[in-house]
């Protein structure tokens, strides 16, 4: 049976935890707002890029650039975008589990999968598993820049162009709202214009030639896609953390309520017992 003092200690400790979770929630909310703004700010660039590429790629044939060429797949690369830190609910777990399922699926089709991890959690999870990690970017999610997306692209473009990987996928949590994140798996390479809905085109004067433009634009298009994925992942992470911390705070509140109830009941009980003893003692003295 817990003593009064034990319960009092317990309440104090839960209260402290509640303060921490509440503070984390507030921080996540502030960061979420900033991340959301970054997504909004980045959207026009991505949209315009897509528009221009649409008209450009629709006219050229798939053989024009290795990034457009579909070849039989033996080895694929999966870019796994997770968070650097935990305490954000099922955010990382669901990503890792999906990635593992993906590796199995591909293996069933006879395709070997290698990983490129962005964010510490994905790397931690797969380090001890049998999936090879060819490249990792850790502790980068705090500061997402367009250059970072460029570095990531360079890491996998080289291997893709050298024919080491025939397909490149990206797995991340895409941001819908503060409470909903959607697990998204997309193929980045090769690019298939039909799938991306590239049909329409405009009559342009090209300077330099169309091919040269296409050569330079395709890697940038991929970079924009990766960049957008990273921004989405960061916003999702903060959203998930906010929700998780909110739940933790309300759990702590409930726990404090129950403990206080128990504490009061115990105190009442001990007072009653003491009273009974005094009354009993007085009665005995009267004797």
């Amino acid at each position, binding site marked *: 049976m817990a003593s009064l003092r034990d319960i009092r200690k317990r309440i104090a400790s839960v209260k402290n935890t509640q303060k921490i979770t509440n503070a984390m929630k507030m921080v996540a909310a502030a960061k979420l707002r900033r991340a959301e703004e970054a997504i909004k700010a980045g959207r026009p660039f991505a949209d315009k890029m897509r528009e221009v590429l649409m008209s450009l790629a629709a006219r050229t044939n798939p053989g024009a650039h290795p990034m457009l060429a579909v070849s039989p797949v033996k080895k694929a690369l999966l870019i796994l975008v997770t968070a650097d830190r935990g305490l954000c609910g099922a955010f990382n777990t669901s990503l890792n589990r999906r990635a593992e399922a993906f590796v199995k699926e591909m293996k069933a089709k006879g395709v070997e999968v290698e990983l490129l991890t962005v964010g510490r959690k994905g790397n931690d999870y797969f380090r001890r598993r049998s999936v090879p990690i060819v490249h990792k970017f850790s502790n980068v999610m705090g500061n997402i820049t367009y250059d970072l997306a460029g570095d990531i692209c360079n890491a996998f473009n080289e291997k893709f162009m050298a024919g080491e990987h025939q397909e490149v996928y990206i797995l991340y949590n895409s941001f819908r709202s503060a409470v909903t994140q959607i697990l998204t798996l997309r193929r980045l390479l090769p690019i298939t214009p039909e799938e991306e809905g590239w049909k329409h085109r405009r009559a342009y*004067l090209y*300077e330099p030639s169309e091919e040269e433009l296409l050569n330079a634009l395709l890697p940038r298009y991929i970079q924009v896609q990766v960049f957008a994925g990273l921004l989405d992942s960061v916003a999702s992470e903060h959203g998930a953390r906010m929700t998780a911390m909110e739940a933790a705070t309300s759990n702590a509140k409930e726990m404090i309520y129950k403990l206080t109830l128990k504490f009061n009941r115990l105190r009442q009980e001990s007072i009653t017992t003491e009273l009974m003893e005094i009354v009993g003692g007085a009665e005995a003295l009267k004797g």
Partner: protein
Amino acid sequence: MAQKFKVELVTPKGVVLDKEVEEVIAPGIMGEFGVLIGHTPMLTFIKPGVLSYLENDRFVKYAVGAGFCEVLKDAVNVLVVEAHPADEIDKNQANEDLVRLEKEILEVNAVENPTEYERISDSIKVTRAKISIAN
């Protein structure tokens, strides 16, 4: 008064400029080019340098990074990795950056590490453009 057309300057960090202007001068890869309304639709690259537009007989300048530019009949869309308006540039900071970058580029081997080399040399060009338009 010349007729106006819309120009948009967009970076991954957001829309920097969205305005009706009379003329745009951009640093194209095949040389600097000016655009007035009714230009033939064109698609070209932008190299790091100075982009300016004419508004009320005054040129407003931006230091821009690499990217590309889409010219339409009644609009110009410029997509670059970075863009800095002249009045937001800190000249001292830019000078410091230039010194640092010029040191950095000496340490990078252009043959072994071409992407890194290109990145730094682009930064140098942008910084030079910044210094040239800062007031």
